[in-house]
Structures are given as structure tokens and as C-alpha cells.
């Protein structure tokens, strides 16, 4: 065989992979996806993000990935499409509602949430069952997914654009506004929600993202707020107005594109990832950390995640409206849809 044919058959990556990975499986989807979510112990959901029609697919994992004993006897190594559906808009966020056959999606442009029924054994079609929407603190409500009944409404004076929404336990949720304000609401009582003002050094054009982490070993929940200028503030939910610790992150962003959306979108992604890491490290060490962001580790993860996110992110298209306020409303995309476990397992918080 000639040398070129050697290259053809086995390249460097291939040879290295033999020692680098015990098992390696590569699957090429017909259409790329930005989302992947477990819908059961053996199935995942993916969806396309092109501007026109997209597919939602529920895929069953191949047996080979599960086989513990006698793995060698299992030849079945392909994914199977078990349910499929169509979406008119791109899917940039997808969440499964635990304990149900429902998923919730968002297109990344607006704040509408589409609710889908994955279906059972009798059909392979994923059908849309409803739409939830709202974008501001004045429109936050808790809805029973299966009945559509509204269970709680957040009563606030102002209508501030939201950037995060999540449960800290079964009944209490946190709504984080783009200006850095936090609302803390208990769905069991009709009492006015607790409002915490933005951090002291919040400038006018600075946008904030919020995430909370409830560690069962800790008496209270920790909240981190991260600004578009890279300022991170950690607070205890018992005293949300005070900072337990803070840090200035060294965030590298791309040069401004015309809309400014690219930078915000990327920073949003950075924030999301950093916050995720912070949450997981806090849990892993049983909350024994000082509660600050570990600067070097978060940046290391962030950089690699930025690469991944960049690869998956479609080119930013300018918003149709030119006014700054409209632009702000367009982004960042809804990323923090959560569902609760426990008694209210089929409720979804919408903003």
C-alpha cells in the first residue's frame, strides 16, 4: 500500500484514540442540535435550530452503551428514533419535566415556551400541547402543566425584564431581573415577594444574570449574580442585599458586532457556564468552599465551553427592530426554565 493510503485509513487522531478512550461512539445527526436532554434513563431529546422547520427527536440509546456484563456480545450500537415532531421555530433551549412525558422548548428569540407531549407506545409523534409566555417580573406565574391552571402569580410594582427564574426548593422561587434585582417568592403564601435591590456598583448599561444553588448541607441558599462587565457577587438568600464575597472575572469577549447582541449572547453563555460550575463545585465539596468563585478553574472551564458553544451557535442575525429597548427585549434567550420535584412536579415556572 502506498503511503497516502496509510493516511487515508488511519490518521493520527484515530491512533491516539485507541489509548485515549476505552470506548468511543460517534453519531451524526441529520440536523445539528444545540440541546440534548434526558427524558428517561434510556432516552434523550434533541432538536434542530434552523430558522425554518425543525425536528424534535426522542432517541433511544443503543444497548451497547448500557451493557455491563457481556458487552462484547452486544452488537446493537445505533440510536433509534422513538418519537419525532416538528417545530416551526428553532429550538435553543429544551427541558424535560421530570416524571412526565412533557418537554418545554424555547426558540431563543422571544420568551414563548412551547409545551410538547412526547407521546407513548401507541404513537411516535411528538405533539405541541400549549404555549406559555411572559418576559417580565410582572408576568411571572406558576402553571399546572397538565391542566393549564394558574397556581401563583408574582405580584410586583414594576415590569423589569427577567434573566433568570428558578426554584430554590419545592415552594420558593427566585426571579432575577436584568438590572440585578432579585425577587424571592414563596408560592404557599399570598404575601408580597421579598425584593433585593441590585448590587451597589451596578452601572446603567450593565446587565446581570442570577443563579441560585440550594445545597442540602447548608442552612440557606446561595445566590450568585454576574454582570456583563464580569463582576460576580455571591449572597446568602437570608440576606440577599449583602455580598458574602465578590470577584472581578477576566472575561475576554469578541469585538462588538453591529448589534451588540453577539457580545451579550456570548457573555450570557459565559455566565451560564460559570454559574453552573460554581454550583457543581459547591455541591461536590459539600458546600465547604468559602463561597467564592474559584477564578482559575471557572475560567478554564469557561474557555473550553466557549469553544463548544461557539461551534454550536448559529451566526447572530440582527434583530428586526432597531431601537435599543427592543434589542434588549430580544436577548438574552430564555435559559432558565426549571421544574420542581416533589409535590409540584409538573409545574413550570414561566417568565
Amino acid at each position, binding site marked *: 500500500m502506498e503511503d497516502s493510503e496509510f493516511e487515508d485509513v488511519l490518521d493520527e487522531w484515530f491512533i491516539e484514540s*485507541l489509548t485515549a478512550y476505552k470506548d468511543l461512539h460517534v453519531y*451524526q445527526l441529520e440536523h445539528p442540535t444545540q440541546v440534548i436532554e434526558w427524558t428517561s434513563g434510556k432516552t434523550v431529546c434533541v432538536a434542530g435550530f434552523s430558522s425554518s422547520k425543525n*425536528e424534535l427527536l426522542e432517541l433511544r440509546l443503543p444497548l451497547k452503551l448500557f451493557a455491563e456484563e457481556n458487552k*462484547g*456480545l452486544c452488537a446493537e450500537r445505533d*440510536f*433509534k*428514533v422513538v418519537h419525532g415532531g416538528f417545530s416551526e421555530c428553532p429550538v435553543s433551549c429544551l427541558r424535560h419535566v421530570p416524571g412526565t412525558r412533557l418537554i418545554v422548548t424555547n426558540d431563543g428569540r422571544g420568551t414563548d415556551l412551547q409545551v410538547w407531549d412526547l407521546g407513548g407506545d401507541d404513537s411516535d409523534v411528538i405533539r405541541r400541547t400549549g404555549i406559555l409566555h411572559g418576559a417580565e417580573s410582572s408576568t411571572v406565574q406558576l402553571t399546572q402543566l397538565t391542566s393549564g391552571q394558574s397556581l401563583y402569580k408574582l405580584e410586583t410594582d414594576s415590569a423589569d425584564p427577567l434573566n433568570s427564574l428558578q426554584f430554590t426548593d419545592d415552594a420558593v422561587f427566585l426571579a432575577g431581573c436584568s438590572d440585578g434585582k432579585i425577587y424571592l417568592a414563596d408560592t404557599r403564601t399570598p404575601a408580597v415577594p421579598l425584593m433585593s435591590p441590585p448590587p451597589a456598583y451596578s452601572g446603567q448599561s450593565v446587565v446581570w444574570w442570577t443563579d441560585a444553588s440550594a445545597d442540602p448541607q447548608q442552612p440557606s441558599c446561595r445566590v450568585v449574580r454576574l454582570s456583563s462587565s464580569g463582576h460576580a457577587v455571591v449572597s446568602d438568600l437570608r440576606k440577599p442585599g449583602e455580598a458574602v464575597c465578590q470577584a472581578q472575572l477576566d472575561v475576554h469577549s469578541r469585538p462588538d458586532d453591529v448589534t451588540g447582541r453577539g457580545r451579550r449572547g456570548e457573555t450570557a453563555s459565559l455566565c451560564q457556564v460559570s454559574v453552573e460550575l460554581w454550583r457543581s463545585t459547591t455541591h461536590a465539596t459539600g458546600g465547604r468552599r468559602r463561597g467564592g468563585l474559584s477564578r482559575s478553574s471557572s475560567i478554564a472551564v469557561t474557555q473550553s465551553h466557549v469553544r463548544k458553544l461557539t461551534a454550536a451557535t448559529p451566526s447572530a442575525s440582527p434583530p428586526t427592530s432597531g431601537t435599543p429597548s427592543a434589542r434588549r427585549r430580544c436577548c438574552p434567550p430564555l435559559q432558565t426554565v426549571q421544574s420542581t420535584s416533589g409535590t409540584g412536579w409538573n409545574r413550570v415556572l414561566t417568565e
Partner: protein
Amino acid sequence: MPEIKVTPLGAGQDVGRSCILVSIGGKNIMLDCGMHMGYNDDRRFPDFSYVTQNGRLTDFLDCVIISHFHLDHCGALPYMSEMVGYDGPIYMTHPTKAICPILLEDFRKITVDKKGETNFFTSQMIKDCMKKVVPLNLHQTVQVDDELEIKAYYAGHVLGAAMVHIKVGSESVVYTGDYNMTPDRHLGAAWIDKCRPDILISESTYATTIRDSKRCRERDFLKKVHESIERGGKVLIPVFALGRAQELCILLETFWERMNLKAPIYFSTGLTEKANHYYKLFITWTNQKIRKTFVQRNMFEFKHIKAFDRSYADNPGPMVVFATPGMLHAGQSLQIFKKWAGNEKNMVIMPGYCVQGTIGHKILNGQRKLEMEGRATLDVKLQVEYMSFSAHADAKGIMQLIRMAEPRNMLLVHGEAAKMEFLKGKIEQEFSIDCYMPANGETATVKTNPSVPVDMSVNLLKREMALGGPLPDPKRPRSMHGTLIMKESSLKLVSSEQALKELGLNEHQLRFTCRVALQDPYSDSETLHRVYTHLKSLLKGYTIQHLPDGTVMVESIVIKVSSSAEDANAKILLLSWSYQDEDLGSFLSSVLKKGLPSGLPKM
């Protein structure tokens, strides 16, 4: 409306056996005749009672077409032709014709000799069946009879696999069999032209699969082999002679060279001879790379791979051996297996499906103690690995194929209708075509809209062109007037005069006359003028003339006025028209019967 009927044969919803009946333009065709490998009784055969309840199939089938040599596509062929009875032609590609009987004979030996079954075809039956085979070349149209023609297209998948285009008149069907849209190391990718069949028939199982990449499968294979060799073990790879074995050899050879490995690799000689022989015959069926290699040298002159001698099996140290047969049911591979089974450092890699009753099948089901001849027990301590390398299309591939062929309808077999609604929707939305999914034993009827080619006489064409209007456009229908003649099994559109001439008939002219009585106090000429004025105001857009000879003409209808000798006021209007103007003529007579309005201007 003409229609094509498709019935997948088989019991229930079982996948695993391909046998499809197609009824097109009055012809009946059987596509594949597979055996279901999971059953031991008659359920493994297709249910031929759909063709006829009693007796032989010859009178009911115009031909049988086999897509490739896998047993789930041809395993029941000798049963069908020799035990149920069929004497008509059986079409398959040259490589399929060469390889089929080998696999069928192996299969027969296992089923009858090993399992002791009785209701099964014999070696002679296989031979008799193959005598009925008419081999096909790629892209060559074969006339089965005056009306039915078939053509084979390259399908990839295995050596000799074909997709078949079936045409009767202007209706056609394409059956894919098993195919692959990405090229292999030794096979190309499936290809078909934009033949626009009425129906494209394919398996539904592919469309809902997302396959692990070929490289990962190969990586797995090499890793397993390497690990075994590293610990001093011996690796046995039972293979059927062709295709896959060669591909694995290319892989190993390259890997050995790259990693500078020294352990010997052997290929049993029986394999080499057969493989070389077949590749010489079927070189056009492999891909470009293989053809280039073959032209340069002998197929199996590898640097690291040598011919095997059975004494080598006892040599110490690591080695890899490719040996036949593929299911470990007899011969050299079984002998080697028996020697190596007791050592846990060793490994056997099964690269394909094994029929029930074979050692291959048993060890793939996890059996670790085997009963051999003479009641001896064999402890299976070596590592058993099952790796499937067979190349099938997937969700993306099926969409690519539909894009290539542009069928008018899609038909998917081997799936449950309820579980294929999404796929049906996907195809219907993407291509705006109907998608049918008949269950086994159910008939799907697809209405077709075949275009009927008709010749048109030049005279008629010229006449139509002279009428003016927009130029002929294939996308815009245009009405025209002519007579359709069927002559010498062709259709011709000619002018009526020409048609009459062809038929030897005279043309008769029909003219109608009508008398309308009117009370009108004016003179004849004045009455005529009043008629003219009245009609002119009523029939705008029509050519109405008051001629000097004392008649009014509306288009070609002639109107005359005369009065009775006795009563000058009693006028008779005589209308005369030809058959072509019947509508207008009748209308005029009914209008004039109502009389003339009083306020008409005088001359």
C-alpha cells in the same frame, strides 16, 4: 384510474424476512424471497397463499427478482421455486448468482444435517433453482416480456447488491432492497438516476436509525485485536469468503504497519483462492480503490498477512487468523476454535449474523459450555466479541435516496403504522408525496397518473398554431380540437377530415332551419333591419352583419324575413345554421320568438 398494488408477505409485524408482491400494469412480480431466521417452523417462509391458494406459482408470477445474497432476502428461494413450484425467470445480478448457492448450501447443511429438520430444500433443489436464474448487469434494461422491463442499479451494502427499477408502460416502481449511501472500504455508495418512479419501496427500519460511525466500529475492532495480541492471545475471525473479510484485512495490515506490530496474521488459503476468483469476475462491483489495487497486484498479497497452514494453530504466541466458514459450523474455523476456546487470553470476533444451530449462534448468546461430537464438552473461556460491520442506510440516507430518485409516492415496509407516523409526516412534508406503510399481508393500492404519449399530425399542429394565442408550453395545458385514432398500437391525434379519410367515410354537413312567426307591421326589409338592430344590442361581441342580399348574418347563422301573402303583418323569420353553431342558433330562435321590442330605431 390505473393503480399499482404492493403487498409485503409475511406473518404479523415481523421484520427479518423480505418478500414483496407488486402488481403493476397487469404484471405480478415478487421482490426478494427471504427466510425468517428466527423461526424453526413454516413461519420462516413467506406466506405464498397471497399469490395463489393452491398449487404452483408459475401462472401467477411474471418474474422474481432477488436484490442480494443475504438469507433474509433469498433464503426461501429454493423452497419457493422447487417445493411450492415456480418455473419462470428469477433475476439477480451476476455476483448474487455466484454467491447465493454457496450460502444456501451452507444454510441447508446447518438446518438439515445439524438440526435434523425435514421440511427443507435439498442440494439438488438449490441447483435446480439456480438454473432458472437470469443474471443482470448494472444499468442494463432487460425485457422480461413485451411489456415488462427491469433495470438494476448499484446498491452498495454487499457485493452484487442491487436496487431494481421495474417498468410496465409508463408506470414504474423502484425497490431498494438493502442499500448504503456512504461508500465502504470495498464497496461504493448506492446510486440511482432521477427516474421518477411511481413508487419507491424501501425498509422503514433504516429511517429511524442513527448509526454509530464506521470509524468507531473499526476502532473497536482494532482495539480488541490489539489488546488480545498485547497479552499474548490468539484472535480468530471467522469470515465468509468475500467483501467484509478483505476490508478487515486492509484495516489490520495498515494498523500493523503503523504500529510496527510483529504478531503474524494469517488468511486461510481456501479463502484466498475463492476471493481472488470472485473479485476477478466482479471487479466492476467494487469501488475505485479496490479496483486500482487489484490491477496492480494480487488481491491478497499483503506484507503482514500470510497464507495459513493448520499446523500454525498450535504455534505459541499471539496471532490473528481469518478462517471460513463464517458461523463456526464446520471446517477450518471450527477446528481452530476448538483448539483456542479453552484459553481466556484468546478471542473470537464474529463479524456477522449466525444462524440458529451453529456454534457461532450459541456463543453469541452467551453459552460457555458447548456439546461437541462424541458427547465431549468444550469450555468456552476465550473472549467472544460480536461486531456488525454490515453497511445500511440510515435516516439521512433514505432522504438522500428519495432526493435522487424523485418518486411520486413512497412505500415503507417492515414497520408498524402507528410507530411510523412521524416518518410518514417527515417524508410527506419534505417531498410533498404520499407515504404508504402496509403491514405484512396488507395490500397498499397506489393510484398512478401515467401520461399517455400521443402523436399529433403535422397538419393539425399547423392549424392549431395558425389560430394564434400563446406558444406551446409544457406547463400550461391548452385545449385543442381533433380526433384520436388508435392505429397499430399507437395513438394519433389528427384533424377530423383526416380521421374520416383514414376511416374511408364521407363527411356530412348538417344544417338546421327554423321558422319563427312574428307579428310586425313594417315592411320585410324594415323588419329585417329591426331584427338586425335588436340582435346587435343583445349580442355584443358577436359578428352581426346586415348584408345587401337581404339577409342578416350572426356569425354563420343566416336570417331571412318573408311575409305571408294574405297578411302583410305576419312575418316569417327563417333561420338557418350549421351543426357547429347549434347553441347560438337555438338561442337566436328563442330570442326572436319573443318578438321584437317596439322602440327600435327605424332605418
